[in-house]
């Protein structure tokens, strides 16, 4: 071998190996399935169907519409009552009155109002309310809102700046602001953005702060010409000073505020944008703690847990910014993209995707919206490295079934389950290795073919004759250029992606060489009394051998568990895994169950693995094995179970007779107690239904007694009349006929008194309290009037 050959071989090997070494990235084993997408769409539809058009719900409506658009491609606005919604928005913008003084209006209220303003203005433009009907056009913006917007933009909260900025730009499209106002707003927004950027350069920026700066950056780039710079907007400040002048002024406050802007004063928007992306990278680096915690710590809220809203917002705005910067640099060649340093590594992206997947089963609109927009941003072409997802239809295969129906079908797709174009990828079955022995590999690099109907890649794993167990299936997807030599833009940049899928191979098992040995205990010599071999799946009865066990004996049961069909079937089948039939298998559960057929007493005994066989020993003399001294027929069952068995085994392999002979007193009591215990405690049986009976009324006296006492009660009345007669009851003061008015009023008064008594009686028998009170008022009025006159007459 000369050096040339060696060199050639080395280069050749290098090329072969390089395909394996060359930047292999990770992929995902999950997607958001069609079913889950449908559920989320239903959530969005519900929000619209509820027709809750109040200003508090504008944000929900907007989120529902965006989410729906992403998922279905069609707009949800066609299902909305546009008239009502436009009217509601118009009323909100024209009529709302706010006390924008901070001490009277809480931060939450201001934020809620700004939220409603932002969402409302976006919806207004999407529905084109201003063009359709004159009624719906916002004629005049309420001054309170203008004041609020200006105040928020000039304030310190980046969130409020963003919300009010977006509101302004949306409303500007409806031409509701005049030129002077427009220019003022634009100047102020740009200035605030610069201030925020300057603050970002300080150490330890808060996440809440930086997430909104990204949104602001998107706003600025979308709405300002890329050539604009501060210089142009610096000139016409309110008091005549330019921003540069203010930066050099002697007033401390002014100087401080405008000093930080100095660096940005001469930048164009394009340059600002580059700065933003750099700053975000710095922010990411600042917040990274350990390698493993990257995705968790970047998007945390204060408590340290990852937050869905923050994650989604940062991803959305980052994706928009990246796309805008790509658009600005559109003339460059494709090759340059590879050299870009990625801010988010593959682990970051996978962590983010997994985090978003963990929240995908939600009924809340805002959560669903965040999940969908976050995933869409991750999936965006040319922004992040493409995340490849490989999902299998079935992750469990059975050895019994053969053929293409039992092969594993893999879907190679993006995050949303859309299959990648098949002419630009190649799918390899990279490794199939048992989980317990990862160094042993059953296959290597094997190109998978695609099923034309379902567009899924077929992996016929059973061709490699695996035995049962857990396997790690590593699948590699590699990118290939299409026929015309140009690589598919949508899939860049990725070279290869690896996904590991945990698969389970199950198969049938059988028990072989089962032997029951009855022998004397060691203390008495340990001699074997009987030995029986039983074939699976028969029982000892078919062999017609009666196994009798006496008091002191020891039962020893040994057996082997192997993969394969019961012996009858295995002769007929010409399976590819015949060589595995003698493979011994470890089981998870192996035990023998003894049941007394008469009393129902049962006991379990574990079987331990000794060399190649399982062995179970039942000592009849011991406390466990004495079966509470119950003589009679017993059932012996073998229970074998494991994850990989197609069907676990429950095999009644023997019926034995245990004979205890005469029992001593102590033993008899044990037996009796045991039989008692087998009965179900009455507390656990169904009891009779209780029918509630109310307390019966207590006894009443006999009617005679009650009636007698009623009579007795009349006696005082009689007594009263008698006494009145004795005392000399007379009607002297009664007005005579000479004074008719007085007479009449007197009579009326007495009549009303009588009416009162009648009214009470009527109340008792018929009327309700309300009616009684009503009549009482009337009667009372009459009686008071007539009474007054009567009593006045008495004087005379």
């Amino acid at each position, binding site marked *: 071998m000369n050096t040339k050959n060696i060199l050639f071989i080395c280069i050749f090997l290098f090329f072969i190996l390089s395909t394996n070494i060359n930047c292999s990235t990770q992929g995902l084993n999950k997607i958001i399935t069609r079913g889950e997408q449908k559920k989320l769409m239903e959530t969005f539809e519900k929000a619209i169907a509820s027709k809750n058009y109040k200003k508090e719900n504008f944000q929900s409506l907007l989120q529902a519409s965006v989410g729906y658009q992403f998922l279905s491609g069609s707009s949800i606005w066609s299902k909305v009552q546009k008239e009502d919604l436009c009217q509601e928005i118009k009323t909100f913008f024209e009529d709302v009155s706010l006390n924008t003084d901070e001490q009277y209006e809480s931060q939450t209220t201001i934020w809620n109002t700004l939220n409603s303003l932002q969402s409302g203005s976006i919806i207004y433009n999407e529905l084109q309310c201003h063009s359709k009907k004159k009624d719906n056009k916002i004629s005049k913006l309420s001054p309170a809102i203008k004041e609020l917007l200006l105040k928020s933009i000039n304030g310190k909260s980046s969130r409020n700046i963003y919300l009010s900025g977006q509101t302004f730009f949306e409303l500007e499209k409806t031409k509701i602001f005049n030129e002077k106002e427009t220019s003022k707003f634009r100047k102020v927004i740009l200035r605030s953005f610069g201030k925020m950027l300057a603050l970002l350069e300080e150490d330890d920026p808060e996440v809440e702060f930086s997430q909104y700066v990204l949104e602001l950056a998107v706003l600025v780039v979308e709405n300002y010409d890329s050539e604009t710079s501060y210089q142009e907007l610096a000139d016409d400040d309110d008091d005549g000073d330019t921003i540069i002048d203010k930066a050099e002024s002697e007033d401390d406050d002014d100087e401080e505020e405008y000093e930080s802007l100095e660096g940005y004063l001469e930048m164009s928007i394009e340059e600002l944008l580059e700065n933003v992306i750099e700053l975000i990278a710095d922010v990411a680096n600042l917040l990274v703690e350990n390698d493993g915690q990257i995705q968790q710590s970047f998007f945390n809220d204060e408590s340290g847990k990852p937050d869905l809203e923050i994650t989604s917002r940062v991803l959305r705005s980052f994706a928009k910014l990246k796309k805008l910067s790509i658009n600005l640099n559109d003339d460059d060649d494709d090759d340059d993209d590879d050299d870009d340093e990625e801010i988010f590594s593959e682990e970051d992206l996978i962590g983010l995707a997994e985090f978003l997947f963990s929240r995908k089963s939600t009924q809340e609109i805002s959560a669903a919206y965040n999940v969908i927009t976050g995933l869409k941003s991750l999936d965006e072409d040319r922004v992040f490295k493409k995340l490849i997802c490989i999902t299998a239809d079935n992750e469990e295969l059975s050895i019994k079934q053969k053929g293409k129906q039992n092969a594993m079908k893999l879907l190679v797709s993006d995050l949303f389950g859309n299959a990648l174009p098949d002419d630009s990828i190649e799918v390899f079955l990279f490794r199939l290795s048992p989980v317990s022995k990862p160094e042993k590999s059953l296959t290597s690099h094997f190109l998978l073919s695609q099923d034309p109907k379902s567009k899924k890649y077929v992996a016929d794993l059973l061709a490699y004759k695996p035995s049962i167990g857990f396997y790690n299936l590593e699948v590699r997807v590699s990118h290939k250029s299409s026929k015309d030599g140009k690589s598919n833009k949508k899939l860049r940049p990725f070279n290869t992606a690896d996904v590991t899928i945990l698969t389970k191979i199950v198969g049938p098992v059988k028990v072989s060489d089962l032997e029951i040995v009855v022998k004397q205990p060691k203390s008495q010599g340990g001699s074997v009394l009987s030995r029986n071999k039983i074939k699976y799946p028969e029982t000892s009865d078919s062999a017609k051998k009666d196994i009798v066990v006496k008091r002191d004996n020891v039962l020893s049961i040994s057996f082997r568990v192997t993969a394969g069909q019961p012996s009858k079937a295995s002769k007929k089948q010409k399976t590819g895994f015949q060589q595995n039939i003698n493979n011994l298998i470890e089981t998870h559960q192996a035990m023998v169950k003894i049941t007394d057929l008469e009393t129902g007493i049962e006991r379990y005994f574990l079987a331990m693995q000794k060399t190649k066989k399982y062995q179970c020993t039942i000592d009849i003399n011991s406390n466990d094995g004495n079966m509470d001294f119950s003589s009679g027929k017993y059932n012996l069952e073998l229970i074998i179970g494991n994850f990989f068995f197609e069907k676990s085994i429950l095999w009644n392999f023997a019926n034995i007779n245990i004979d205890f002979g005469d029992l001593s007193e102590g033993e008899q009591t044990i037996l009796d107690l045991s039989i008692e215990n087998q009965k179900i405690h009455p507390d656990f049986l169904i009891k009779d239904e209780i029918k509630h009976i109310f307390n019966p*009324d*207590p*006894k*009443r*006296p006999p009617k005679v*007694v*009650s009636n007698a*006492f009623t009579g*007795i*009660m009349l*006696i*005082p*009345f009689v*007594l*009263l009349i008698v*006494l*009145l007669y004795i*005392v*000399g*009851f007379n009607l002297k003061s009664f007005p005579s006929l000479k004074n008719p008015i007085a007479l009449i009023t007197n009579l009326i008064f007495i009549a009303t*008194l009588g009416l*009162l008594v009648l009214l*009470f009686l009527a*109340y*008792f028998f018929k009327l309700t*309290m309300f009616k*009684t009170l009503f009549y*009482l008022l009337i009667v*009372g009025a009459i*009686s008071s009037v007539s*009474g007054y006159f009567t*009593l006045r007459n*008495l004087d005379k």
Partner: protein
Amino acid sequence: MTENSFKVFKRIFDGYKNSATQSLKIIDCFLLFQFLTGIFQFVYVFLVGKFPFNSFLAGFISTVGSFVLTINLRTLVDPENKETKVSIKRAFVDFLICNVILHLAVFNYIG
């Protein structure tokens, strides 16, 4: 002994007959009537038991309440009462109104 007590009672009774005006005596008869009614109801309940309690309360409160109101009327009507200066008519009207309200409550309770 009993002769002495009898004499004392007679003296009190005569004093009463002489001093009281007729209207007072009428009111006193009425008072006696109400008192007896209340006593009889109480004895009945004592003998026979409290069921139904609401009816007993209604009857008893009727008599007791009326008794109290009548006593009030009597004190206001008594000419020897020089502390309170309310006209007889006013007292009587109050008596009537309070009785109406009392019996409204009582009729609620009879059940």
